[in-house]
């Protein structure tokens, strides 16, 4: 149990996907303008990530490895992820149309969110087991959502700050992300 907890903690804080591993930056910089859409994106990504992590694990272990098709992992993972995203989109459209309209543009982008594919690939690289894959997926997603939310709130404040012209927009976003990443380095050694 302690092992899983540590894994969870380390993926959320210490090896945060966005701030330390540079995965999932597009939605991080794109959606995080407003707190409510960041929350929605976080939820959607959490769902997709967890599901994708598990299903890609299953696919890899029980389909690709037995048939020695490991080199096809990238393609097959992408397909799995695309399906999961599609499913999420349909569900969201059904249950929260307003959220769907706000995130409409970004939802399909989860497909190309490298965090999702990254989780699947890192699961293989780190030789995670089934439960570990789940925990890793959840941890990644939580870490992503946490950072997304904090960043969105920060950004609401920066948006009205007197930022010098050349720094406005993406630049200040990146620098802020850098300082966030610097702060997160305080967690080094925790787990």
């Amino acid at each position, binding site marked *: 149990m302690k092992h899983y907890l540590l894994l969870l903690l380390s993926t959320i804080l210490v090896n945060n996907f966005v701030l330390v591993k540079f995965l999932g930056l597009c939605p991080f910089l794109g959606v995080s303008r407003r707190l409510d859409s960041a929350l929605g994106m976080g939820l959607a990504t959490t769902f997709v990530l967890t599901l994708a992590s598990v299903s890609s694990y299953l696919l890899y272990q029980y389909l690709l490895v037995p048939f020695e098709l490991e080199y096809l992992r*990238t*393609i097959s993972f992408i*397909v799995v992820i*695309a399906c999961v995203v599609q499913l999420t989109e349909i569900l969201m459209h059904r249950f929260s149309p307003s959220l769907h309209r706000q995130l409409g543009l970004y939802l399909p982008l989860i497909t*190309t969110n*490298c965090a999702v594919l*990254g989780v699947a690939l890192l699961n293989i690289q780190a030789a995670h087991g089934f439960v570990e894959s789940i925990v890793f997926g959840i941890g990644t997603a939580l870490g992503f959502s946490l950072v997304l939310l904090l960043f969105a709130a920060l950004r609401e404040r920066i948006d009205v700050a007197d930022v010098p012209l050349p720094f406005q927009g993406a630049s200040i976003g990146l620098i802020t992300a850098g300082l966030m990443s610097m702060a997160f380095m305080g967690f080094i050694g925790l787990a």
Partner: protein
Amino acid sequence: MDKNIRTSFINGLWHNNQALVALLGLCPLLAVSNTVVNSLGLAIATTLTLVLSNGLIAYSRGFILAEIRLPLFVLMIAGIVTIIELMMNAWFYQLYKSLGIFIPLIVTNCAIIGRAEVFASKNPVLPSLLDGLVMGLGFSVALILLGALREVLSMGTLFSQAELLFGASAQHWQMNVFDDYSGVLLAALPPGAFIALGLLVALKNALDLLFSKK
């Protein structure tokens, strides 16, 4: 035609630079740009993918259903990346190792799917190939600049470990820009990557502002 090529080059390298303006494909950009050599490796791989995928998609655009084009594009790109990955595995194993999962992650580089959707799916093969090349070059320039900046700042060197890419003869390519330099370690770490790119983007904006005033 010449003028077209010229404008498309300017566009790809400056006005519509995928990394600095559109902010696409940042994940690998930030992750591998800690040295020039790593940057160069990924730059080549990404440019190659862009050219190939643009060409393939432009070629096949006639017989793809509009509704399912995106998944198909992604599949094609994934195929191309897999091929490149296998090639790198065979020929540049050390570099392949040090780039890690960022080679397969080229698939999810938004810049590639973006060009496929915006340009290649609407244009013939030849312009699409050119577009891929130009956009890839723009991305590469940003990547290498960032790599150089971070390498100089963090270690005071350039082209260290060039042998990973260029073979054993490149071992002495390393340049020491500063002697007796204690190195800003931060630049090599994730925060440094973010901040350096942020400053690079700001620099580009500032230059734009300066030009537009003149």
